[in-house]
């Protein structure tokens, strides 16, 4: 029985929207942790595509985020979120973050060193 419920849940995921089973109360999310370690942890989610600390592999088709001028990452995220910048997946991910979170991650990435040795 449990397995069937889970399958239904995945089917909902496959349909695109983050649909919840009927009768589920709306989420009560913890307030964002905008302290130093909280922002670092939030930004670490970007690493699976954009590289550790935002340093993408050399020649990566996915943008490096480390060391970008303050405001650049935030501007892109807001445009993605509002559907004003073409995207394959980022318009969907950007909708998961509010302005404060986006600004904090932007500040964090702007302070990270760019990849120095392009041969590595």
């Amino acid at each position, binding site marked *: 029985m449990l397995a069937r419920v889970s399958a239904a849940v995945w089917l909902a995921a496959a349909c695109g929207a983050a649909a919840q089973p009927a009768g589920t109360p709306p989420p009560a*999310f913890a307030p964002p942790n905008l302290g130093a370690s909280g922002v670092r942890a939030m930004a670490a989610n970007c690493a699976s595509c954009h590289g550790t600390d935002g340093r993408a592999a050399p020649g990566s088709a996915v943008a490096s985020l480390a060391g970008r001028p303050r405001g650049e990452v935030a501007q892109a995220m807001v445009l993605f979120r509002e559907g004003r910048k073409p995207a*394959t997946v980022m318009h969907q991910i950007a909708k998961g973050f509010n302005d404060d979170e986006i600004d904090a991650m932007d500040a964090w990435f702007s302070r990270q060193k760019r990849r120095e040795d392009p041969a590595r």
Partner: protein
Amino acid sequence: MNRRDFLKGAGASTALASIPGCGGIPAIVGGPRRRVAVVGGGYGGATAARYLKLLDASVEVVLIEPNEAFVSCPLSNLVLGGFRSMAEITTPYGGLIEHGVHVVRDTATAIDVDGKQVRLANGNPVHFDRVILSPGIDFMWEALPALSDEQAQWRVPHAWKAGPQTVTLRRQLEAMRDGGVFAISIPEAPYRCPPGPYERACLAAAYFKAFKPRSKVLILDANEDVTSKGPLFKKAWAELYAGMIEYRPNSKAIDVDVRNNVLKLEFGDEKADVLNVLPPMKAGRIVEPFITANKRWCEVDWLTYESRAAKGVHILGDSLQIAPLMPKSATMANGHGKTCAAAVVSLLRGEVPNPSPTLVNTCYSMVSERMAVHVASVHKYDLSAHTMRPVPGAGGVSASMNEAEGTYALNWARNIWADALG
């Protein structure tokens, strides 16, 4: 072994804790230096080890992993299709060693919770202050009795743990006659990598289309419909592999006639030239004493990944009882690893772990050598439900299959391997 026996056994072995060092690992003789043992060097465990060192270089990290190198399950279907080599999905553990992780090539046999040590098949036990277990999945062979035999498992491979099984299944596909049938049997959800079997069907069909065009892929799915990215996969099957892929829902396997390559279903039998059976899955063996959900999965505190069954024991990845709409994916295991590593560093320092973790899942599936589709979601901590829940309105799937996402999928692999393995 039940939980009570396990705990009884634990007391007897604490004497071993006094044996200094093991396998080149410096002995801990008290003092402020803390040691975290990580069991399993897959997406979850390798990431946890890497991030423990990134977040606090003074923490001693011991990674216990039996395999010589990391072999990625994501992209392994490209190997089955003949589009990539095993070498291209294999990464050595040297990067983690460079980052200061002690890598012990051994198999963990038990966790002594009270004595705080990991027992190994060959080496001396590894003491820990905290332990992170990321063993991935194990198979419930009892659901397919004939496959309990190890030789049978190589004749009818699962190839659901990338490595020699992947090579075996690839060789079977290569040896198959043109006009043959390749059948994939999918268990009821939840299982590791929900879209993986449907991706496998695509890439096997891509191989057949080029080299054995009269051949067929038969998907026998225990579920009532495709469990992930359904409309996208169905479109790919119809448009890229017309007439080559047959999908049959509600087709649950109950056993295998190994000699005759016949899958026994709840209703009827199905013979195939190459038979690929994914058995029902559960949490990996080492976490068996900590299974609390449905006799299959482990429940954790989503802020720390500490087991609901044992203090000081953290569990990650595919072994977990999933949170709502959270797939058993590599990206999720990578996210678990980071969140857990940060929480463990906080706990070792006596600080409060992050009360508001975020997880982002991006999961790509190749539908051909070059085209991919994705599903994405953003998960945050729900204070009332004490679990991770998807952020409403965020996430979604690809608008259509396309080559740009194929490129991004390959980039994802390069970057996540570097993120997890250094």
